[in-house]
């Protein structure tokens, strides 16, 4: 009952602060629009390519390219399984003379890298084919010249050509032309570019780097604003004395924490829905999985952010000191959230990411949005978030003891 009353009060306060409200909803939209325009650049990352029935030469050529690892698979099924397990980023399959490429496309930079590697590999292979063809045709020419010389000798020898010899010469000439024709034909086969078809597991050829950032960015905005605003709100309660006064009533400490959680939970749900709708309709993001799952994961993250904000606000004596937590607590989360690929970082740096809540929500939401993973298969990530939430909430309820001893 008291929890609901506190929730109502916090919501009422929030909805009367129009500017803060606008910040929570409009700022993320603005920033994402900007980022979608700006962040469609590429950088180098390591890519793993799976090949099926591709010539050894092409495998070698691609493998020799920097940042590219080639793995060969016997069947397309095995390769597809590896793709689904994120062991490889793309599959290259040869069908007769044609190539079929399948990209995971969850990271457009990787897709671009694979495309480039394949193109280079193919060019290198065809150049070597061209070389051998050229060699063949040169030897053919030498032979032809020899034949022609022989024919000229014969013609000189037979001053009065008979019908029979003329026919023989014609036949010989015909074979010669035929030989040239074969040479030409080998040349032309090596020159015809094989037909390449591209397949994308997620998105299409227009999927940019921004698409990979989006799910994480969404979580970041939820985290950032809920953290900051809830932290500020509790700080204000403390500095204006309302917290002391609240605690001078028989209200339970947990009711205060839960009241805040409910109100900010509602706000986070609305915020997530707005952000998802904007990204889907305005930015044209493709959501493979369930949108409700996306909201659920972000709600969980918002509650973690709330508990985090409330906890840290007890270490701040002013709004300005609360702002000082942004570079310490919020910004590092971005670095380890997966926006910047973690696999290119040193191991000890990677280990830091395990204590970053944003990483878990980012992983889960990325899987749901890009791979269509069910929320029930994200148990690991959700469980970690839940653990964060429980620990922080308990700390908060206990932490309020500072202000009232029961």
């Amino acid at each position, binding site marked *: 009952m008291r929890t609901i009353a506190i929730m109502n009060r916090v919501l*009422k306060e929030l909805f009367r602060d129009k500017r803060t409200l606008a910040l929570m909803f409009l700022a993320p939209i603005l920033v994402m629009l900007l980022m979608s325009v700006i962040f469609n650049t590429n950088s180098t990352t390591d890519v793993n390519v799976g090949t099926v029935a591709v010539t050894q030469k092409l495998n070698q050529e691609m493998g020799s390219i920097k940042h590219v690892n080639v793995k060969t698979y016997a069947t397309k099924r095995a390769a597809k399984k590896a793709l689904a397990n994120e062991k490889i980023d793309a599959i290259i399959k040869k069908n007769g003379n044609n190539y079929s490429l399948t990209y995971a496309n969850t990271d457009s930079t990787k897709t671009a890298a694979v495309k480039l590697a394949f193109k280079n590999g193919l060019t290198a292979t065809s150049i070597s084919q061209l070389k051998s063809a050229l060699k063949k045709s040169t030897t053919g020419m030498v032979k032809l010249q020899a034949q022609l010389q022989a024919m000229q000798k014969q013609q000189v020898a037979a001053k009065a050509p008979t019908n029979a010899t003329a026919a023989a010469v014609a036949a010989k000439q015909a074979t010669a032309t035929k030989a040239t024709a074969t040479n030409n034909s080998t040349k032309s086969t090596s020159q015809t570019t094989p037909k390449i078809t591209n397949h994308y597991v997620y998105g299409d050829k227009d999927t940019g780097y921004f698409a990979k950032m989006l799910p994480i960015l969404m979580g970041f905005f939820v985290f950032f604003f809920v953290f900051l605003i809830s932290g500020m709100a509790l700080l204000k309660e403390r500095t204006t*004395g309302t917290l002391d*006064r609240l605690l001078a009533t*028989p209200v*339970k400490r947990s009711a205060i924490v839960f009241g805040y959680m409910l109100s900010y939970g509602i706000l986070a749900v609305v915020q997530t829905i707005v952000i998802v709708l904007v990204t889907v309709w305005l930015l044209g993001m493709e959501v493979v999985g369930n949108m409700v799952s996306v909201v659920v994961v972000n709600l969980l993250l918002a509650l973690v952010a709330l508990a985090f904000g409330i906890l840290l606000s007890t270490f701040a004596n002013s709004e300005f000191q609360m702002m000082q937590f942004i570079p310490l607590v919020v910004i590092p989360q971005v670095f380890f959230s997966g926006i910047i690929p973690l696999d290119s970082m040193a191991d000890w740096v990677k280990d830091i990411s395990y204590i970053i809540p944003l990483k878990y929500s980012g992983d889960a939401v990325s899987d749901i949005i890009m791979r269509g993973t069910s929320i029930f298969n994200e148990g690991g990530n959700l469980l970690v978030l839940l653990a964060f939430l429980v620990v922080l909430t308990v700390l908060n309820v206990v932490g309020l003891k500072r202000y*009232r*001893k029961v």
Partner: protein
Amino acid sequence: MTNAIIELDHLAKKFGNETVLKDINMTLKKGEIIGLIGPSGAGKSTVIKVTLGMEVASGGSAKVFDTVMPNRELLGRIGYMAQTDALYDALTGRENLKFYGQMKGISKQAMTEEVDHAAKVVDLTDDLDKRVSGYSGGMMRRLSLAIALLGSPELLILDEPTVGIDPALRRQIWKELGSIRDEGRSILITTHVMDEAELCDRVALLLGGKVMAFDKPASLEAQYQVATIEDVFLKAEGVEQ
């Protein structure tokens, strides 16, 4: 003393190495107004904090309604007004009253009546639906007092309630406090205004973490051989130094 509402017995409080309260002995009986006076930093607010259970006594004991504090449930029977106004700016006066009423556990049925009564006492009825951010300093103080009066608590603990309130209203508030006492409820009040101290049934003079004197205003004046409580205050402070 069976009818003691507040009973502070050899109360001591330390914050780290700093001793704020050394030895406080004080009782508040049913239907009594006790004034707590003393210079800034004497520990008046600390006495209130320990009495409310915000802080735990380092030595001795603080009992309210014969129960050792801190005790959460008992807080529903105490009306508390802090030195700071402690109001929610974005809400209206009525919403503030209603919210604190809900926190105190006032039932829905009784709420409207309680809110109206408390507002009437502090003369805020007309401004109840304005946002607190538009209130004057005096209005905020009055709203804060109204919150303490909500639910007709058996014990009122008021930390400097009349700061920033004009003389006419101050007189009205003291009249209300008097009638609360006459109903058999008890009030512990801290003040810097010495003529207010004269209106208390008993005055506790707090100095250096100890209760230097604790008696009726008239008895204190006789004891120190001065005319007013203000002189008692000054003399006691002079003796201490």
